[in-house]
């Protein structure tokens, strides 16, 4: 196997070194690991086999933040890739970088590819479009946060009904702990995304002013509201005996769910591929829990995951290849398959309809969970999405303060107040550089 691919690579190297096979290379930098990495590789391979003029070359560049930074560094050094996968929190950074990027709507128009922004799911494209509805980046792997459930363990612990609200989750966590899960009753990955960003949207509480930054960069953080403080305080209390146990800022600890350590785990719906491949128990995913005393909750969730940005300064021929690749990705059958295998959302309406019509969701309700969350209610100012400059840095600050509260170094209220004022400083800095 190894030998064969090596020989293949060698043969390919020889073939491409002669000018007769002058293919245009399209560099695609991404951050996908595990099952999703296989999906990326397979997509590139399928595209390369489908035509002769272009060759998509994929490179894994580390976690989302690393990939974004690799792209920025490469741009400054003058050799940016053609396609850069950037997570949703990098959106404002990329939007602010006019001249560094080639907007997707423009790319498709220039290349003469058929492109209808209305064919894509509005809950997703809204995040990546200007106020005028011009799509700036190409949605690729969109997800939302869901609650993963280990049904076997819940049954063993005597939790007969899957929890819907936070108080029910706390109860279930205590029962699980009593039944032997003494290191983790419930947990979550992506500390800030779960406990601040999604919590705000799901309860229709503003995270910041100006529609969470969508209406302008002069936004101010507001995530130290009574609801936010109450939620963090609950987690702090439960952390003491590990009914809740902290799992870090990113997705490194998602394995705690698949290994069976944590039976209730909030993380991205894009985790599906790995759960399917590794979990040796009966699992499902359900919508995120909510506080029933908050009026109108649950609202709707916001998307996560990433989109593909096209970098500026490339030749017309290269852009043509990128545009062709995007058309290839938008294909209904391909999108439907991608959605059904990876757990990421279908990006086009047609792919969603097709999957629905095929009766897929009856057999796999797990995959409809994030879609139901996103379309639960008509989005409000507080649940349309987020757009903050230097969001990567802000997330780190927020996680840092959450950690301080969970470790018992400061009260929940103080931690959130500090996170808000530090985040505001970062926002003001960004505002100055994009002016």
């Amino acid at each position, binding site marked *: 196997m190894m030998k064969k691919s090596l020989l293949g690579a060698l043969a390919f190297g020889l073939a491409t070194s002669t000018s007769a096979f002058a293919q245009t290379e399209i560099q695609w930098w991404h951050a996908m690991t595990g099952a999703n990495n296989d999906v990326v590789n397979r997509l590139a391979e399928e595209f390369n086999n489908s035509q002769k003029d272009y060759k998509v070359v994929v490179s894994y560049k580390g976690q989302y933040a690393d990939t974004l*930074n690799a792209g920025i560094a490469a741009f400054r050094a003058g050799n940016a890739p053609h396609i850069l996968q950037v997570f949703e929190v990098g959106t404002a950074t990329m939007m602010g*970088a006019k001249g560094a990027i080639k907007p997707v709507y423009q790319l498709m128009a220039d290349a003469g590819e058929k492109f209808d922004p209305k064919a894509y799911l509005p809950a997703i494209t809204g995040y990546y479009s200007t106020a005028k509805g011009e799509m700036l980046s190409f949605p690729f792997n969109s997800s939302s946060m869901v609650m993963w459930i280990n049904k076997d363990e819940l049954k063993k612990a005597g939790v007969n009904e899957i929890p819907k609200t936070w108080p029910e989750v706390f109860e279930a966590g205590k029962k699980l702990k009593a039944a032997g899960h003494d*290191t983790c009753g419930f947990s979550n990955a992506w500390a800030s995304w779960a406990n601040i960003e999604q919590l705000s949207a799901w309860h229709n509480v503003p995270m910041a002013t100006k529609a969470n930054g969508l209406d302008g960069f002069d936004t101010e953080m507001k995530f130290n509201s009574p609801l936010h403080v109450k939620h963090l305080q609950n987690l702090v209390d439960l952390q003491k005996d590990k009914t809740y146990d902290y799992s870090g800022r990113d997705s490194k600890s998602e394995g705690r769910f698949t290994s069976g350590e944590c039976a209730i785990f909030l993380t991205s719906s894009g985790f599906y591929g790995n759960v399917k491949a590794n979990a040796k128990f009966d699992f499902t995913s359900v919508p995120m829990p909510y506080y029933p005393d908050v009026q109108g909750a649950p609202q709707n969730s916001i998307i996560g995951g990433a989109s593909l940005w096209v970098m500026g300064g490339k030749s017309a021929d290269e852009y043509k290849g990128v545009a062709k690749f995007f058309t290839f990705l938008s294909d209904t059958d391909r999108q439907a398959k991608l959605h059904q295998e990876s757990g990421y959302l279908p990006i086009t309406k047609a792919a969603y309809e097709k999957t629905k019509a095929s009766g897929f969701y009856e057999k796999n309700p797990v995959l409809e969970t994030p879609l139901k969350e996103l379309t639960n209610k008509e989005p409000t100012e507080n649940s349309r999405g987020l757009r903050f400059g230097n969001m990567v840095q802000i997330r780190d600050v927020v996680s840092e303060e959450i950690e301080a509260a969970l470790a018992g170094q400061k009260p929940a209220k103080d931690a959130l107040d500090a996170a808000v004022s530090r985040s505001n400083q970062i926002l003001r800095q960004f505002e100055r550089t994009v002016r």
Partner: protein
Amino acid sequence: MEKRAHFSGWTLPLLLILPQMAITVIFFYWPASQAIWQSFLREDAFGLSSEFVGFENYLGLFEQPEYYRAMVTTVIFSSLVAFFSMSCALLLATQADKNIRAGHAFKTLLIWPYAVAPAIAGVLWIFMFHPTLGTLARPIRAIGIDWNPMLNGTHAMILLVLSATWKHVSYNFLFFLAGLQAIPRSVIEAGAIDGAGPMRRFWTIVFPLLSPTTFFLLVVTVVYVFFETFGIIDAVTGGGPAGQTTTLVYKVYADGRLGGDLGGSAAQSVILMIIVIALTAIQFRYVERKVQY
């Protein structure tokens, strides 16, 4: 008669010194001057717009309580790493210097970790001590210690000190071993004949003769901890929990590379540079007096 070699004219000496000068200018002075210039600017991450802001980046830095905390963390971290990496290396070197079976194999094995890249070293330690992934973390938890470097700052610091020390022991070991082997056997044998025990021989003969090596290693180790440990910190703790393992160099990396704040990051690296220059100067001024060449 004068001892110094004499060159007539300027051409030859200049020619001989030129390659070294060129390397120093290209790889040290030029980047350093860029950092200083950068620290007076405010730029977006992509470098599309920049504005001259004078000392604003520096002033902003000294308003952050996090910056002072990073300083304290750096002092704790660097003293621990310097102490452990040098004392372990000295212990290992004295043992490897004895005539033991398969001595060469031991020496080679001890030098190995130096060839490991810092980030890889960090990942190796994560695989052992990560609360959920770690192969050694489970037994530690099983014996009743609530090992949790993800929330407990002390645990995170222990983990970091271990990995940074492990990474640097080899280097120090190599120099200590070379130093030990340069000590004439006859001196030690004379001590033994006079009735001095091994401990006494070590502290009165060997250690003083090793002092130039020790001094050199002290300087090198401090520079190592200040500049080269961010790869380990990034892989092991990411500066967390709650910023308790954020050292000055990691803050430079986090703010500049991860946060895209190049001006602030450049200002920090200029300050870091000044601190290390001052530290090295102090070492040469005061510690070196105790060194016998």
